[in-house]
C-alpha cells in the first residue's frame, strides 16, 4: 500500500514537471498554430540563469525574477528577429525556424554560461516529507503548485480576458482578427514573451529536482510536447492532465512492470490515445467550414 502511494507521489512529481513544460506550448500554439520547439530552451535558460544568479550571491527571489524577465525578453526578441520576418510562411516552416532557434540558444548558452550541470537547493529545504510511509520532497510540492497556478492563470487568461480571446482570434484567422482591430503583431510578441516566461518559471522550479545544463532543453521540449499531445495541444487543462497522467503512468510502469520499458509503455499509450482521439484527451475538435 505504501509502495503504491510512493509510486503515485513519485509520478505526481514527474507529472507536474511534464505539465509545467506542456503548459508552455499552449500560448504560442494558440496564437499561431506553431509548436515552439525552442520552448525547452526557455526552460533551460530559466534554470541556468537562476542557478548563476544564486551562485553570484543574489537572493533566490531576485535571481528567479531576473531569470523570468530575461527569458521573456529573449522570447520577444526571438519573435521579432526570427518569427515575425517569416510572417506568412507556412506553419511547418515556422516550426523549423523554432528548431533552428533551439539549436542556436543551446549553443549560445554553452558559451555564455558553461557546460557543467547546475543545481541549487530546493526553496523550502531538502528534507523529505513523510506521508503514510511514503516520501516526497518539498520542492515537488512547489512544482505541483506552480503547475496548478500556471494552469489556472492560463485558463483565466484565455476564457476571461479580452487579450486572451484576441490571442485565440489571431490563431483562428489572422486577417479577420486584424480587421476587427486586433494588433496581431503585438499579440505574437506577447505570446512569445509569455511562453518564454512560463518556460523560465518551469525551469527555475524544476531545477532543484531535475538539475540543468546547457543541453537539457531538447529532452525537456520533447517530454513536454508528448504530454501536451496526450492532453490536447492548446488546452491548458489538457496540458495539466496530460502531464500528470504521463508522469503517473511512467512511475506505475517502472514500479509494477519494468523500469526498462517505462518509456515504451507510456509512448504506446500515447499512440493509442491519439489513434482514437486525434485531438488528445481534452483538445478541441477542429472543424473546417465548407
Amino acid at each position: 500500500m505504501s509502495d503504491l502511494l510512493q509510486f503515485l507521489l513519485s509520478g505526481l512529481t514527474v507529472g507536474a514537471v511534464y505539465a509545467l513544460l506542456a503548459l508552455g506550448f499552449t500560448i504560442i500554439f494558440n496564437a499561431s498554430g506553431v509548436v515552439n520547439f525552442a520552448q525547452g530552451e526557455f526552460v533551460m535558460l530559466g534554470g541556468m540563469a537562476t542557478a548563476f544568479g544564486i551562485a553570484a550571491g543574489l537572493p533566490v527571489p531576485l535571481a528567479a525574477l531576473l531569470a523570468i524577465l530575461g527569458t521573456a525578453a529573449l522570447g520577444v526578441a526571438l519573435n521579432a528577429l526570427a518569427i515575425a520576418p517569416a510572417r506568412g510562411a507556412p506553419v511547418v516552416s515556422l516550426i523549423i525556424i523554432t528548431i533552428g532557434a533551439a539549436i542556436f540558444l543551446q549553443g549560445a548558452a554553452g558559451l555564455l554560461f558553461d557546460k557543467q550541470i547546475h543545481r541549487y537547493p530546493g526553496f523550502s529545504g531538502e528534507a523529505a516529507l513523510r506521508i503514510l510511509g511514503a516520501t516526497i520532497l518539498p520542492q515537488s510540492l512547489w512544482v505541483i503548485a506552480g503547475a496548478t497556478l500556471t494552469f489556472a492563470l492560463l485558463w483565466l487568461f484565455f476564457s476571461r480576458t479580452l487579450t486572451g480571446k484576441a490571442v485565440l482570434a489571431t490563431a483562428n484567422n489572422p486577417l479577420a482578427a486584424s480587421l476587427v482591430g486586433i494588433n496581431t503583431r503585438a499579440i505574437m510578441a506577447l505570446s512569445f514573451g509569455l511562453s518564454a516566461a512560463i518556460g523560465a518559471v518551469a525551469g527555475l522550479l524544476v531545477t532543484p529536482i531535475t538539475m540543468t545544463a546547457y543541453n537539457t532543453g531538447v529532452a525537456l521540449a520533447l517530454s513536454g510536447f508528448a504530454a501536451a499531445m496526450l492532453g490536447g495541444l492548446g488546452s491548458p487543462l489538457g496540458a495539466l492532465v496530460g502531464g500528470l497522467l504521463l508522469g503517473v503512468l511512467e512511475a506505475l510502469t517502472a514500479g509494477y512492470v519494468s523500469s526498462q520499458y517505462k518509456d515504451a509503455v507510456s509512448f504506446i499509450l500515447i499512440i493509442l490515445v491519439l489513434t482514437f482521439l486525434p485531438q488528445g484527451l481534452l483538445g478541441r475538435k477542429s472543424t473546417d467550414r465548407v
Partner: protein
Amino acid sequence: MSTPKSLALAAILLAMGSPAALAQIRIGATLAETGPAGALGDPEAKTLRLLVEQINAAGGVLGEPLELVLYDDGGDPNNARTYATRLVEHDEVVAIIGGTTTGTSLAIRSVAEDEEIPFISLAGGIEIIDPVHPFTFKTPHTDRMACEKLFEDMQAQGITRIGMISGTDGFGASMRNQCLDVTAGYGIEIAADERYAPGDADMVPQLTNIRNTEGVQAVLNPGFGAGPAIVTRNYRQLGIELPFYQSHGVAGQAYIDLSGAENAEGVRLPGTALLIADQLTEDDAQRAVVTAYRDAYVGRYNEPVSTFGGYAHDALAILVDAITRNGEADPDPVDLRDAIEATAGLVGTTGTYSFAADDHLGLDLTAFRLLQIQGGTWSETP
C-alpha cells in the same frame, strides 16, 4: 601595396615563418568540445591546449615546438571521420589524439588504421582496443575494470547479493553489460536490475523495488551526468541504509555538489589519483604528475580538474614520451607506433601505462583507487 614592397614583405615572412613551420611537430586532435559529450570534451581540449603551451614554453620536444591542430567534432562520428581524414591528409599530423566518445573513436580508428597513423583514444569502450588494432591505443580504464574493482571491494566486505540501477545512456548501458559479464568471477548475484533514462527526473519507483527485493546487501549505480546525482538524492529520500556504490562516470566534484555532501556521504566508487591529489603519500609514484597537472589546470581555467582532462593529459604524455624516445622531430608513423607500443612504466594521472603488442590499454586494476566520499570530499579506502 607596390610590387617591390609586397615582395620584400613576402621574403621577410618566408624567412621568419617557414623554417619554424617546417620543423614543428604537428599533433592532431578531434574532440567533442560541444554537443552531448561537451562536458567531457571541453576539459580535454582545454588540457591539450594548456599542455602544448607549457611544453613549448619549456623548449618543445627534441628542441622543436609542438603545434596542436584541434577540431570540434561535436561527438558526431561522421564529423570525427571527416576531421581525422583532414588531419592526416591536409594537416599532415604525426599522430591523432581524440575521440571523446566510443562512437567517434571507432570512426577515427578506421581512418588511422587505413592511413597508418598512430591514434590515442580518450574514450572508455573496451571495443576500441579489443581486439588490438596496430595503430590504436587508449588512455581511460574500461567499464569492465570498474566493475571488477567494485566487485573486489564487495567481495572483501562479504556482499554477495546486490541491486543495480543503471542509466540507459551509452555509458550506463555498456557498464551494466560489463558488470553482468563479470559477476560470476566474484560470486556476486544481481538480484534486482533496474533502469532509468538519461533525462528522468525521479528514480524513486526503481529504488523502492530494489529496497523491497529480498536479501539485497548493496546497491550499484552505473551512470553518467545528472542521473546518478538524482539517484543518490532519491536513495537518501527513501532512507535506504545499504552500502551504495557509484561508477567512475561520476568521479568529479560536480557529483558531490549536485547530490549534496550529506546525501553522498559514504558512497564508494572507483576513481583516479587525480581526485585525491592532496592525500597521496610522498612516495606515491603519481603524486608529482597529478599535483602538477591539477595546479596548472586550476591556475589557468579556475575550474576543478576532471578525470576526462586527465585522459587527454596522459595521451599527450604518452605521445611526447614516444616521440622523444624515437628521437626524430619528423617521425616515421610506423616507428612512432612502435615507440608508443614500447611505452613502459609511464606515470600518468590515470595510472601507470605499460603497453604491449597484445595490450593497447596498458593499465591494470591498480590504476583504479577505491574512493569513499567523506565530509564532502574523497578519501581513499584502505
